[in-house]
């Protein structure tokens, strides 16, 4: 005798069948509701430059933010082999630093949420330095990573601003480190301008990164600066408890039990904030490029 599937089981089976038959989505494992699916063949898809706060004068912007420039739509065009292209379209989002050791750049997508539920962030990414030398250059990108910027709703009793950060520390001062790190610290909040309306902090400051337990991972870098391979990542986070649930990169799933986020008091104008950002950082005086082929953000609501 066979069990009769429930309507819920049938619906889930149908959802999975449709996902797996869709070439654009089949390589993702989204939760039941897709919040956004960006493949950058339809434009920048809402991934914009992270601009720093300021008041009255742009000179008030913290230097960490002042260095940022706009992300680009790239075909990964290389001087020696032409356009590499994306995973299955011509384009990927490109986040490029300036050619200076420690330089960073960030692209951000800004949403709000309608339910504090588990969310899943999946992406295919790769990174390379600018191919200015005929060398492997595997230690020229310091790090690439991503962060969320979250805050509970205005009627939530436990609302705080929560910023989970994860980076792949590829190299530091020329050493090929290759490990995942997280961050619980930001810089002190600094008033910007003459009123008390605007504050700023630099959450991507180089201090305070901690190792993800057993977080060493050797990624596919390939053999010259102009060959790239796309890498999968997945980060699960619960907006209800504001805790990380799981993190995966390619074939490795990492222990998140020791993970925590930057946590700061709720701010007066950021309710239900649901921001996602990617960043890149240079380890030499050479531009570091983070390419994002596609991003799928989903939620269980």
């Amino acid at each position, binding site marked *: 005798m066979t069990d009769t599937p429930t309507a819920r089981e049938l619906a889930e089976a149908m959802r999975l069948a449709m996902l797996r038959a869709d070439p654009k989505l089949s390589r993702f494992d989204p939760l039941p509701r897709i919040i956004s699916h960006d493949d950058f063949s339809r434009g920048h898809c809402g991934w914009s430059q992270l601009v720093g706060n300021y008041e009255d004068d742009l000179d008030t912007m913290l230097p960490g933010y002042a260095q940022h*420039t706009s992300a680009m739509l790239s075909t990964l065009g290389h001087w020696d082999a032409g356009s590499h292209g994306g995973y299955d379209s011509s384009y990927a989002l490109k986040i*490029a630093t300036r050619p200076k050791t420690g330089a960073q750049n960030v692209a951000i997508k800004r949403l709000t949420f309608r339910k504090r539920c588990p969310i899943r962030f999946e992406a295919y990414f790769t990174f390379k330095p600018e191919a200015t030398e005929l060398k492997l250059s595997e230690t020229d990108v310091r790090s690439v990573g991503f962060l969320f910027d979250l805050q509970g709703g205005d009627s939530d009793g436990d609302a705080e601003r929560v910023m989970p950060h994860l980076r792949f520390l590829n190299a530091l001062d020329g050493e090929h480190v290759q490990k995942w790190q997280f961050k619980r610290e930001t810089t002190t909040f600094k008033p910007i301008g003459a009123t008390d309306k605007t504050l700023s902090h630099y959450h991507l400051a180089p201090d305070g990164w901690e190792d993800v337990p057993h977080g060493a991972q050797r990624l596919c870098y390939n053999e010259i600066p102009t060959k790239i391979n796309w890498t999968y990542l997945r980060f699960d986070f619960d907006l209800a408890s504001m805790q990380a649930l799981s993190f995966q990169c390619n074939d490795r799933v990492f222990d998140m039990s020791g993970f925590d986020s930057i946590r700061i008091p709720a701010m007066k104008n950021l309710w239900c904030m649901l921001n996602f950002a990617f960043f890149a950082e240079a380890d030499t005086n050479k531009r570091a490029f983070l390419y994002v082929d596609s991003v799928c953000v989903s939620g269980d609501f």
Partner: protein
Amino acid sequence: MLPENTTAIVARNETWTGEAATEPHEAGWAREAVIFVRALKQPTGPQPKARVEISPDGMHWLAEGSEFDMPTGKDAIACARVSNFGNWLRVAADFPGGSHSTVLVTIHLKA
């Protein structure tokens, strides 16, 4: 679907002096670009011509042919319109000794 159209901020509150240029901007998807340069502060000294540059790889640059006078007053704007630029764009200017300008450079791209 509507064609892609975006505004990129490639230099914001940067003080240009000597040989100055924006960061390379990759925009091969765009058929046309309008580039604006605004002086955010009163420029100091004689202001040079700025030029649009193109590149085969984002690393080696040459003049595209479009030139314009750098703005000479605070909040003055200069612009250039370009098309058929391939994949890479930047704006460059060579400032004589003692001259400088704090600029906002924006590239407006359309498919």
